[in-house]
């Protein structure tokens, strides 16, 4: 065999091994997560998790998110659209993965707002005003307070409730589950336990539609 051929063949074999290995790994991973979704539901949904949508829905979107994450904010309307396009069939479960420095502050506000029954309103306000308080060069968390009245919140009560150790515990639990599920970036979606094959809105839409097909 000529030297050129040896090198060419080795190169092709290596790349082939990479591609096939990647394929098998992803397959095995999604099987494992699918199994976990059945056997270990609580890793995906905790009692404290906020949910949106019909309780009888058969398609569960579990979203690990960070209130200070720009992509989460950009994705939020898409997820809402998906739910609107398939009324009653989708349930959204919010989990926290506050990976940005100091973003547990916003999770605490959000959880305190939940006690006033204004969770989803507050989340919307947060995402809409995010660019003001979450700039990467100059994050100013205290700026969020001026936007909170838009969600109809009692601010004194928020300031008091957000320091409840129960909330800190809940964030810890979500972070632990994120670690178990190998969530390292936000937002990360699981549709009935299946992770996105690769990140993107179209992939999320395809996965949700496949699950709707399979369950309805």
């Amino acid at each position, binding site marked *: 065999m000529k*030297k*050129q051929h*040896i*090198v060419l063949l*080795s*190169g092709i074999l*290596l*790349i082939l*091994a*990479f591609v096939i*290995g*990647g394929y098998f*790994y*992803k397959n095995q991973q999604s099987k494992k997560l699918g199994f976990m979704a059945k056997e270990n539901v609580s890793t995906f949904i905790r009692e404290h998790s906020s949910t949106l949508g019909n309780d009888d829905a058969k398609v569960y979107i579990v979203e690990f998110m960070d209130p200070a994450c720009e992509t989460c904010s950009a994705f939020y309307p898409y997820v809402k659209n998906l739910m609107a396009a398939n009324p009653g069939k989708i349930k959204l479960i919010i989990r926290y993965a506050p990976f940005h420095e100091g973003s547990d502050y916003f999770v605490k506000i959000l959880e305190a707002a939940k006690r006033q029954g204004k969770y989803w309103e507050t989340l919307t306000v947060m995402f809409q005003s995010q660019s003001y308080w979450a700039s990467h060069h100059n994050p100013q968390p205290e700026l969020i307070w001026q936007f909170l009245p838009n969600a109809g919140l009692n601010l004194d009560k928020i300031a008091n409730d957000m320091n409840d150790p129960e909330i800190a515990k809940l964030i810890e639990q979500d972070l632990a589950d994120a670690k178990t599920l*190998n969530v*390292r970036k936000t937002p990360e979606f699981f549709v009935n336990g299946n992770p996105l094959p690769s990140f993107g809105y179209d992939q999320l839409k395809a996965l949700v539609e496949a699950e709707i097909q399979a369950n309805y």
Partner: protein
Amino acid sequence: MPRSDQKSNSNWNIVFLCWLIASISTLGSLFFSAIMQFAPCVLCWYQRIFMFPLAIILLVGLFPFDKSVVKYALPLALAGWFIAFYHNLLYAGIIPESIQPCSQGVSCTEDYINLFGIFTIPMLSLISFSTIVALLFILKRRLSK
């Protein structure tokens, strides 16, 4: 003629072997980060900086065989080896992590994989760099004879 031909053949084989190790390491590290989604720590990036070009430079040196490839590849391999060595000291706890620079993002002592208790990712890197350095030194000696 056959003797010198044989000799240059084994020189070529040494570079080829180095290239193979560098390519496997390059693709392996990409597999860890792109497929398995392990976030690379700072030290891992420094080692990649020296491993990735080896996969290219050694390939260029193979066609046509250019013995000066040693001169260019060895400094890269050595620099990578030192970082890998440091990383393993850190990983083993011989150097405390508090004095190393990668506090932000991923900890350099994070345990991603650990086969048989010794084959961690930093150890795999050290093995690759050590083998490449050793082979290139052997080649250097053979060429200077």
